[in-house]
């Protein structure tokens, strides 16, 4: 009512929605619906975090216990247990519990007793290997003469140390950045500043075509062609290693880094270049000393976003890195990354088991790392655009 009498209020909408002169109910409803649907991107980012972290929750909170040595309850005491306790003891879901009769549960309890007799008799079997202590720090396992970090999820005593995986991811990413970023930045400078406009029209889409090659095809190319080529060139031992995977990964990030850097360089106002040229600078001096410094945050953001892409890339490293989880900083060693571990192992885990939850845990870590790098890159680009438009 008041909005009709006050002309100022009419143009100020709710949460950025401007209502028109004649706010027909259908119009109003459509606007609200459009607004609500447009929130789905936010909802999805939120859901991704919540539901990936949800599967890892018991490990995050330290509730999971992988210790193989457990107190065993004799079968005769079954009647004294409360239904809830019995369900937990046998590791059943409520649905499974409801469908089971006494006899089956009795035999399950006997199985538990039998299983407890087969537990290996060493101190490692008593450890809860899914607690943070064993996930992130080296430990001296039985049979080793010094503390080590091991990822060995399928063994009598499962070992889930994530250090080898993180080192693997960092190695491959480092190679990818060292190879891909200079190439992509050089190309971005050339295409945006130095190339003649009529070539530009072809060069930019040409490089963007690289983004059209699916990562599984890049992985295939690295596995079948690049690996043999580099082995012939450098003569290293293991055919698939961090170097091969890193080069292929570099190819995957080049289009991303190129697009963002090119965009940042192009958004530097034409007048900057023109002023520099008018003062007698050559084209490369204008590009190197005027445009590049002005666009530097954008170029940096391109590298940051390239990092995010390289850390998260899956199929390339799954196929080309060799997948041996060893702690080594050598680029010529076979290596296993965080993403490849999830892709290779999740299908074989027991649903809801410790291994399954740990894989979701490293997935959550991966999400957090890429979220932060994307967010940082995004903020930098946003600020740069504002500054170049003269708003700060």
């Amino acid at each position: 009512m008041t909005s009709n009498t006050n002309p100022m209020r009419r143009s100020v909408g709710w949460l950025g929605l401007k209502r028109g002169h004649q706010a027909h109910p259908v119009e109003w409803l459509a606007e609200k619906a459009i607004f609500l649907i447009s929130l789905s991107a936010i909802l999805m980012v939120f859901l991704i975090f919540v539901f990936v972290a949800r599967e890892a929750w018991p490990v995050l909170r330290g509730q999971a216990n992988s210790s193989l040595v457990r107190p065993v309850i004799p079968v005769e005491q079954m009647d004294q247990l409360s239904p809830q306790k019995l369900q937990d003891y046998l590791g059943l879901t409520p649905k499974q519990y409801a469908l089971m009769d006494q006899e089956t549960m009795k035999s399950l309890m006997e199985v538990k007793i039998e299983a407890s007799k087969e537990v290996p008799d060493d101190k490692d079997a008593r450890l809860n290997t899914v607690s943070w202590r064993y996930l992130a720090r080296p430990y001296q396992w039985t049979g080793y003469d010094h503390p080590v970090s091991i990822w060995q999820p399928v063994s009598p005593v499962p070992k889930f140390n994530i250090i080898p995986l993180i080192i693997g991811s960092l190695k491959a990413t480092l190679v990818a950045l060292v190879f891909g970023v200079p190439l992509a930045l050089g190309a971005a400078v050339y295409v945006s500043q130095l190339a003649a406009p009529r070539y530009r029209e072809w060069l930019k889409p040409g490089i963007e075509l690289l983004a059209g090659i699916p990562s599984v095809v890049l992985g295939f190319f690295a596995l079948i062609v690049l690996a043999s080529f580099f082995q012939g060139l450098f003569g290293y031992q293991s055919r698939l290693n961090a170097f091969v995977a890193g080069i292929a990964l570099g190819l995957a990030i080049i289009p991303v880094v190129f697009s963002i850097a090119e965009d940042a360089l192009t958004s530097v106002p034409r007048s900057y270049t023109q002023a520099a040229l008018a003062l007698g600078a050559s084209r490369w001096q204008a590009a190197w000393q005027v445009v590049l410094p002005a666009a530097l945050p954008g170029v940096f953001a391109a590298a940051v976003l390239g990092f995010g892409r390289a850390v998260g890339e899956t199929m390339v490293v799954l196929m080309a890195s060799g997948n041996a989880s060893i702690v080594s900083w050598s680029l010529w060693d076979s290596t296993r990354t965080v993403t490849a571990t999830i892709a290779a192992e999740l299908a074989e885990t027991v649903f809801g088991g410790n291994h399954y939850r740990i894989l979701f845990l490293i997935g959550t870590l991966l999400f957090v790392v890429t979220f932060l790098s994307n967010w940082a890159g995004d903020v930098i680009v946003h600020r740069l655009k504002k500054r170049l438009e003269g708003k700060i």
Partner: protein
Amino acid sequence: MSRPRSFAAERFDYGSFLFTGLTAAATFLILAILAVILGHILLHGWESLSWRFITAGTEKDMFDVHKTGVFPMIIGTAARVILMSIFVVPVGVITAIYLTEYARASSIATRIIRGAVNNLAGVPSIVFGLFGLGFFINFVGQNMDAVLRPDSPDPLWGKPAILWASLTLAVMTLPVMIVATEESLRAIPQGLREGSLALGATKLQTILRVVLPQALPGIMTGAILAISRAAGEVAPILFTGAAYYMAQLPTSLTDQFMDLGYHVFVLSTQSPNIEQTRPILYATVVVLLLLTFALNVVAILIRARIRAKMRAVS
């Protein structure tokens, strides 16, 4: 006082030569690598590509060079991307409409939506796979089973299926769709909107009858880019619906499916004899590239035309 610099360079400008040369070398090296990859694959794959290979189903032994084909994989991949576009196109277009037509650039809602879109674009594909499993299958699917079929012990919805794979891919390609549509909406001259409003059309009418028809090529580009991106992705469907082998084609939303990209992965890593299966591996890669790459080329061409149009407008 130093002498004023002369405008004409008397000496050969080595710095300029080096800098321009290096950046040009980087550009052409990237293009050369692209050409080598495509050339190598096409050269090796073309000879083993035959009509029979494309139309034949696959036997139980999918590594048999003479009998196996990729028909089920083509159908599976096509089905999942078509299903995906049914979900992603409307949501993407509506979000883009909100961002360009309704939202004010400075409002908090717009900034958060933009941030979310950019972030979604950078989420690793394997995390989408985990999300599809954790949300669509373990949460939505299992709850659907609990509500719709409480008596049946074996899950119908709460297991990997083409529906869940498509939905996962739809979430993944949402940013592609939004960004492409937004770009084409911004390329439409403001005068068209103003003219429509001046003739008495409401905002919704303007959007539906003036803006959207003009933006159609851009929306098509977005959809094609999203499809081409999704068709080549393997990581998000590893746990949400792709099958190693299936005797039949998928017939319902809850079936699993065979997939071209996943098949490339299987052929190149699980083959008992890589030398022997090399021909079918290359041929499968060619089929996958024809599907994704050809779509991408079409999209880039349309996009280049839209960009040219936009430059003309501004």
